[in-house]
């Protein structure tokens, strides 16, 4: 079974994504995607204004502390329209994964066979634990975004994730535009010496590929705690002709030597980690980054720039959309954790947290 037949039997979608098995499957997901656009995304501003008016009328302060956030949850989730909004949001997410699973499962064996066949082929390399299905840590096995099986326990996790990204990002990830933007935002050392770059939590590998395309002379490595993700990312890299090196590895316990990399990227990784793990990851990055090297963290803004409604939204996303670590991440003020670990903060603008991120430097002696 070729990769083309297994993953792209009806051509690629938006340049890079695997195709669903039939036109009917695609029509089902098209409906879910546009229902999200109309019934979720288009509602974000008006429903925020509506919710904040309810909070104001009830005398709830605009403060992100836990007590105020809980008061907002208790108030807003009594409102019939808001109950409807969150019900619709959850139902659309469940239907999306149902449609995707039903479609890809029809050719599951062929896709897995194509992954197997791709392993020995290049450019680039992939390595993972042969016993990956038994070695997944509990904290990383959550069903993030309520993706069935999560990122670690389903062989097709990378395929599901990638298609999910296409839909959740509302087209921003099409043709890998998002990943290319991230590669531009990934900070490089001031001395211009870029021999090795590391991408943490690569998932489908789009950013790792984009980093290699932007820095063709550098050795580019990508790690993910999920074996299915690095297996899929390897296929993605093959399709792109990108020589990247993928390893199944936990970012909190890396096998790389000290002072090994010139630049490290973590794109939307930290909000998927419990804070104790996040602190270990930061310590490990400090170890593997060379003095003068830079670490770019693209993730959601910290609590100090948020109000009650923003924290309410984060808490709801945590509970209903499989994001259990998001609120604690936001409250951890990760830029502070980076400085506590020894980094110097070079840049952080909360309004550009997802586009320019937090950039820190490992001091030179």
């Amino acid at each position, binding site marked *: 079974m070729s990769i083309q037949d297994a993953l792209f*039997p*009806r051509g690629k979608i938006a340049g890079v994504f695997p195709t669903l098995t*039939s*036109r*009917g499957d695609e*029509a*089902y997901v*098209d*409906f879910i995607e*546009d*229902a999200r*656009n*109309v*019934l*979720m*995304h*288009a*509602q*974000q*501003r*008006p*429903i925020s204004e*509506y919710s904040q008016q309810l909070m104001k009328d009830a005398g709830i302060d605009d403060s992100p502390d836990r007590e105020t956030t809980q008061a907002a949850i208790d108030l807003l989730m009594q409102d019939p*329209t808001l*109950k*409807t*909004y*969150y*019900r*619709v949001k*959850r*139902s659309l997410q*469940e*239907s999306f994964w149902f*449609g995707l699973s039903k479609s890809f499962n029809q050719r599951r064996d062929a896709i897995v066979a194509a992954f197997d066949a791709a392993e020995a082929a290049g450019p680039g390399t992939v390595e993972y634990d042969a016993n990956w299905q038994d070695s997944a840590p*509990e904290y990383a096995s*959550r*069903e993030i*975004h*309520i993706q069935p099986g999560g990122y670690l326990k389903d062989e097709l996790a990378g395929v599901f994730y990638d298609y999910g990204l296409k839909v*959740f*990002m*509302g*087209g921003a990830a099409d043709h890998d535009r998002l990943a290319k933007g991230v590669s531009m935002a990934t900070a490089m050392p001031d001395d211009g010496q870029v021999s090795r770059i590391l991408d943490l939590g690569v998932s489908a590998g789009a950013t790792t590929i984009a980093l290699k395309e932007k820095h063709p002379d550098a050795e580019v490595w990508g790690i993910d705690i999920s074996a299915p993700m690095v297996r899929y990312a390897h296929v993605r890299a093959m399709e792109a002709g990108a020589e990247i090196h993928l390893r199944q590895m936990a970012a*909190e316990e890396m096998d790389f030597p000290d002072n090994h990399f010139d630049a490290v990227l973590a794109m939307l990784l930290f909000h998927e980690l*419990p804070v*104790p*793990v996040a602190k*270990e990851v930061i*310590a490990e990055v400090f170890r593997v980054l060379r003095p003068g090297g830079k670490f770019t963290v693209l993730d959601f803004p910290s609590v100090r720039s948020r109000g009650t409604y923003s924290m309410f939204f984060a808490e709801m*996303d945590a*509970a*209903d*959309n*499989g*994001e*259990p*670590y998001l609120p*604690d991440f936001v409250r951890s003020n990760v830029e502070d954790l980076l400085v506590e670990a020894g980094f110097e903060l070079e840049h952080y603008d909360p309004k550009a947290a*997802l586009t320019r991120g937090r950039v820190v430097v490992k001091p030179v002696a």
Partner: protein
Amino acid sequence: MAKLKEADLAYTNDLPGAERGNPSYFENEVIDHLLGIVLELGAQFWVLRDRQAFLEEQLAAKGVVSAEDLDHGKPSDELLAKLKAERLAMIQQVYGRLYSTYGGDKAAATSAPMS
């Protein structure tokens, strides 16, 4: 740095969202089920509408069409654009009223960067 032990992360099992769960938003969970059902029926209706439109396009172009063509083919870009506009209008017309309390039924469809 001392490595974390399983017990250090045991608290994460109790965090909201750690388990997939099956949340109810209404006191009467039948309302939750009914909203899920009407959304699913909309999706199933749309699958049929899409197939009908694709069938009509194929018949006009070729005269004879196989189920294989309909299952594995791809509508023209023109038809895909027409279907998208029709789909957005249908969703807004059928479901938008759910948000009429605050005027959300008139909100134009947009894409957002993150779910």
